[in-house]
């Protein structure tokens, strides 16, 4: 069922069993999981079914610290969320990502990778991926042209990515709208949360829209599924009963903001051309590998988990740094610029033969977790948005560990490539001096916001527990990457969905 909250009489009371705030990958996945149940599910979406610039403006905010994309255009604010333009890169987190690693402060989750395994398999269906297979040799059996560049995988290994084209907004609109027990309210922006007297449970939330109308939503359980920046912003600004914000007794809400550092880092030079089909990406391709570092080598070298992707150097050199492309407040303009850049750059490669010299050199591009850092954080700004909510302020902070890790990753890859005799690796100049901790201007992120309501068994160290429930508040849960204790290397969406489905299963036991 779909209700446009702009059309309701103001001060309407909306009641249900489960209230999901946010209809992106996390919120929609949970709602789909409840279709046909006896519970009434309220799904609140701030925007409508299409992009609306006035709604998008609610995401605007300031950024300080490490240079970042404009917050206004870093996520999409309508039904389907950022899957409305995502690239669909999916891979699973590794076992090591969940472990406490002595060389990474604040690392360690209260759950293990094995706890997510069954949910990853289910998440695959939501994003319409191929088989739940992350061993590259499985794919090689289907296509013998997929050859590894490595002699063995004891130091560097082939980590599989799969690619989704699923736009949640279009794919799941009918399923949600036609579900009898799911009540989707569009143009229903959460602006406040009201708890009970001792702030141990949530009573209701307030939603607003541009018409000036305001409504109240009551439910037995509430799930915040609004992305890392907005989840933190909502908890921090709901401060009329808890002065520091809800769930923030230990000053953890908004802290530990993490991004994936995405940055060109090195070049791979081969003695003879090789299209390296296992590693390169193109539209329509269903999988590829990136070069990862084994758990043992991460421990031995005390580094973060990261991977290197390969793009023919000729193509990569034609593409401007992502920070220079994605610099408008308008996400649509940014996307157009991005597609234009990649489209032109890819033409030459697409038409090249396998022995073309274009396949002698590759750019090695890093995607790496950042160390959880309490100083990297979301706070509230003094400026308010059009609905009266304080805007978010992002202060993104990196540490020397990230740079040390990137350098070491390419040393290890360079050694392994050297051993094969097929070529050599050359680091970019900003990585030459191991004592240099400065970041170049083209340092970018992946638009992956994580960690602002991090998971920990200990309320002093995190905002949610292992079941994504906010510590100290009986019926408030958080879905999404804001629950991540560490960021791992892969793009976050597949894990967001897996974690959300796990939360959904947990809630089914409670109601």
């Amino acid at each position, binding site marked *: 069922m779909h209700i446009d909250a702009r059309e309701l009489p103001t001060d309407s009371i909306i009641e249900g069993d489960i209230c999901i705030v946010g209809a992106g990958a996390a919120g929609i996945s949970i709602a789909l999981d409840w279709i046909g149940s006896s519970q009434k599910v309220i799904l609140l979406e701030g925007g409508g079914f299409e992009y609306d610039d006035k709604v998008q403006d609610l995401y605007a905010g300031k950024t300080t610290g490490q240079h970042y994309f404009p917050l206004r255009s870093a996520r999409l604010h309508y039904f389907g969320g950022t899957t409305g333009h995502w690239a669909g890169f999916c891979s699973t987190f590794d076992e090591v990502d969940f472990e406490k690693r002595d060389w990474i402060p604040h690392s360690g989750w209260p759950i293990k990778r094995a706890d997510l395994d069954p949910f990853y398999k289910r998440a695959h269906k939501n994003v319409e991926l191929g088989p739940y297979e992350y061993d590259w040799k499985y794919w090689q059996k289907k296509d013998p042209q997929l050859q590894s560049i490595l002699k063995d995988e004891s130091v560097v290994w082939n980590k599989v990515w799969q690619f989704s084209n699923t736009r949640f907004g279009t794919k799941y609109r009918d399923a949600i709208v036609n579900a009898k027990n799911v009540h989707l309210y569009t143009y229903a922006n959460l602006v406040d949360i009201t708890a009970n007297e001792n702030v141990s449970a949530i009573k209701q939330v307030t939603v607003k829209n541009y018409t000036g109308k305001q409504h109240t939503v009551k439910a037995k359980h509430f799930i915040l599924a609004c992305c890392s920046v907005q989840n933190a912003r909502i908890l921090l600004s709901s401060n009329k009963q808890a002065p520091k914000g809800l769930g923030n007794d230990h000053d953890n809400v908004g802290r530990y903001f993490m991004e994936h550092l995405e940055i060109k880092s090195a070049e791979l030079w081969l003695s003879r051309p090789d299209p390296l089909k296992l590693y390169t990406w193109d539209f329509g391709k269903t999988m590829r590998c990136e070069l990862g570092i084994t758990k043992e080598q991460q421990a031995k070298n005390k580094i973060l988990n990261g991977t290197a992707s390969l793009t023919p150097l000729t193509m990569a050199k034609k593409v401007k740094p992502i920070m220079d492309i994605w610099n408008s407040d308008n996400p649509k303009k940014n996307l157009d610029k991005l597609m234009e850049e990649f489209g032109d750059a890819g033409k030459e490669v697409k038409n090249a033969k396998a022995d073309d010299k274009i396949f002698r050199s590759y750019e090695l591009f890093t995607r790496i977790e950042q160390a959880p850092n309490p100083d990297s954080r979301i706070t509230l700004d003094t400026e308010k948005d059009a609905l009266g909510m304080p805007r978010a302020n992002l202060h993104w902070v990196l540490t020397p560990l990230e740079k040390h890790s990137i*350098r070491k990753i390419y*040393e290890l890859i*360079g*050694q392994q490539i050297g*051993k094969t005799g097929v070529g*050599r690796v050359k680091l970019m100049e900003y990585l*030459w001096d191991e004592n240099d901790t400065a970041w170049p201007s083209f340092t970018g992120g992946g638009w992956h916001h994580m960690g602002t309501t991090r998971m920990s068994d200990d309320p002093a160290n995190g905002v949610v527990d292992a079941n994504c429930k906010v510590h100290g508040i009986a019926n408030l849960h958080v879905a999404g990457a804001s629950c991540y204790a560490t960021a791992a290397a892969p793009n976050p969406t597949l894990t967001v969905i897996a974690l959300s489905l796990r939360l959904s299963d947990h809630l089914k036991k409670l109601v």
Partner: protein
Amino acid sequence: MKRGKFIALTAIGAAAVSIPYLNCKGSANAYDKKLALPQSLAKITDEKEIMAIGKAYGSMHKEEYNIKALEEQLQTNKTGNISSNTPEKEFDMFLEKNINNDLDQGNTLVINGWVISLTEARQCALFSLTR
């Protein structure tokens, strides 16, 4: 010098030094040229780059930046040594094994960005002194 031309010249150089081995005893020139040739690196980069790597290594390790010291380092390892009398195949295998051992054991350096083995770095240094 362009990479293609450089590869051609290094190939000719490698072939040429197989005869001088036998005839140039006492003359380090041809032998050093062979010893100073990082084969894998030469396949992917050019003389100018190898020269620059060699000089950079030399500036970091001044104590061994002379022909004699580099020769000593390059022609000896734990299991044996090579000399100007070593047959070419054995000579090549000796250097290749040293390079692979370096890469296996993480005995590598980042010089001018290139991740190379210590043996190759010394070869480049010798290259910069002998060319």
